[in-house]
């Protein structure tokens, strides 16, 4: 089993090596023009020369701060509203039509309205990242709560549980696998929205960093490194969230 696992890792590394090698070779042999598509070595070298670790850390910090604040609040609000809509019939009647009406609008389509309402600064970005996290979570929470196995509710009722304790101790744990899926989707979406928001209107953050590079006719290498950094950041944070979810619901649910 472990040796098979090792084989898988080796094959994966071989695949990556082939891909990166092909890229580097194509640039060196002039198959692709290194001025518009530099090879990996050259791209990293340019970036290392022109960008200080401090600059990268600063931009990355801004990006992470934005995405986290929007994601955390969007997730909390989505959970609260989705759970309430699934649990209290009257609230569901009120909230669901609004949610269903607004849900098909992609978060990025809110950018102009966000600017109208909140101006060009941070609140606008926060708002659309918030929406990016809110809709997947609210949908998942509603779905999770409204499809809890009625048998579990009945079982809990036989122990005298009702009202809020029934919701907190039984319905919400039972809905948590759905909620977890929604949260993971929300993270991916928040991240995508963040980058777009930074490209369109920002002066700090990884998205802004690469857009500035292109607007000032700077180095393509830096743009490429920036894109890879954004991808890596997304990959690592998503893996961290997946691991947290495994600890949270995978334990009892089997994953």
């Amino acid at each position, binding site marked *: 089993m472990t040796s098979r696992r090792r084989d898988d890792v080796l*094959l994966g590394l071989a695949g990556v090596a082939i891909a990166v090698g092909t890229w580097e070779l194509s640039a060196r042999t002039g198959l692709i023009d290194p001025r518009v598509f530099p090879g990996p070595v050259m791209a990293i070298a340019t970036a290392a020369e022109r960008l200080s670790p401090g600059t990268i850390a600063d931009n990355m910090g801004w990006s992470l701060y934005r995405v986290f604040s929007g994601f955390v609040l969007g997730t909390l609000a989505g959970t609260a509203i989705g759970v309430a809509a699934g649990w209290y019939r009257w609230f569901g009647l009120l909230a669901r039509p609004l949610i269903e009406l607004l849900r098909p609008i*992609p978060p*990025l389509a809110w950018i102009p*309205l966000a600017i109208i*309402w909140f101006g060009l600064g941070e609140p606008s970005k926060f708002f659309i990242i918030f929406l990016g996290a809110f809709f997947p979570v609210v949908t998942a929470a509603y779905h999770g709560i409204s499809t809890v196995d009625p048998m579990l509710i009945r079982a809990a009722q036989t122990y005298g549980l009702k009202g809020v304790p029934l919701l907190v101790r039984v319905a919400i744990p039972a809905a948590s696998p759905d909620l977890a899926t929604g949260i993971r989707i929300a993270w991916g979406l928040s991240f995508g929205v963040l980058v777009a928001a930074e490209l*369109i209107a920002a002066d700090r953050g990884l998205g802004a960093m690469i857009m500035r590079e*292109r607007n000032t006719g700077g180095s393509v290498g830096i743009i490429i490194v920036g894109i890879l950094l954004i*991808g890596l950041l997304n990959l690592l944070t998503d893996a961290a969230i997946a691991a947290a979810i495994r600890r949270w619901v995978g334990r009892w649910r089997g994953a």
Partner: protein
Amino acid sequence: MKRQLIQLAVALALIAAILAGLEVGVRSGFLKAYQFPPASRIARGFVEITTTGFPTGISIWSHTLTTIVRILEGYIGALVLAIPLGLLIGAVGVLDKMTAPIVVFCRSIATLSLLPLVIVWFGAGELTKAVLIGYGCFWTMLSNVIAGVKYVDPVLVRAGRSFGLSGTELYRTVVFPAALPRIFAGARMALGVGFMVIVGAEMIGTIEGLGALIMEARSFYRSEITIIGMLVIGVLGFVISSGLAAAERIMLPWSTDLEGIRR
């Protein structure tokens, strides 16, 4: 049935209440019409945008058509590439293991982060938009096709073998049909991704398309047109996803648990 009627009534009442509230709020001077356009203004905006158009000469229909064409170019291109490639990778274990990290990483790259690079390569024109949409759709589609083939229920494969099927014949008669629901799910997700990307991509370097419309309207302080544009985007998204779901039910009537497929 009765419940649905109640729900519908509540929904309509709620929307009417919000619209009335905006109208009253603006007329009493409590809300700024620029920030919260009242229903009357939205209605006038709608007339304008369907007749003279915004910017003048480009009606809402032609914006919508432009956006649809852009999505389809990228989307169909991605499907044409991703389906055969995914069918191959999913079937060949070694290939799957070699490509897995690359697929995961490329999927993690936020599609719009490629915008500056793609503009350098292809300029700010139509090709850039098609490439961006294609990129987003491609990796979503590819990973779903691979998963669809890879995770076919082994019992079905064993059943196929018991009838003496093997090799390409087994693949064609058992593995491929069994993978179809997941492939369809991927196609639906990919279209969602494409839809998300187009709105962002249209906000830069063009005045045509729904994304451009809402951004353009904002810079002319025409928030009612922004809102109409958003609603059209929402309706379009809704029509597309329910259309694909319907197509799926018609083409794969036997498939049951499509909602359960997520990833």
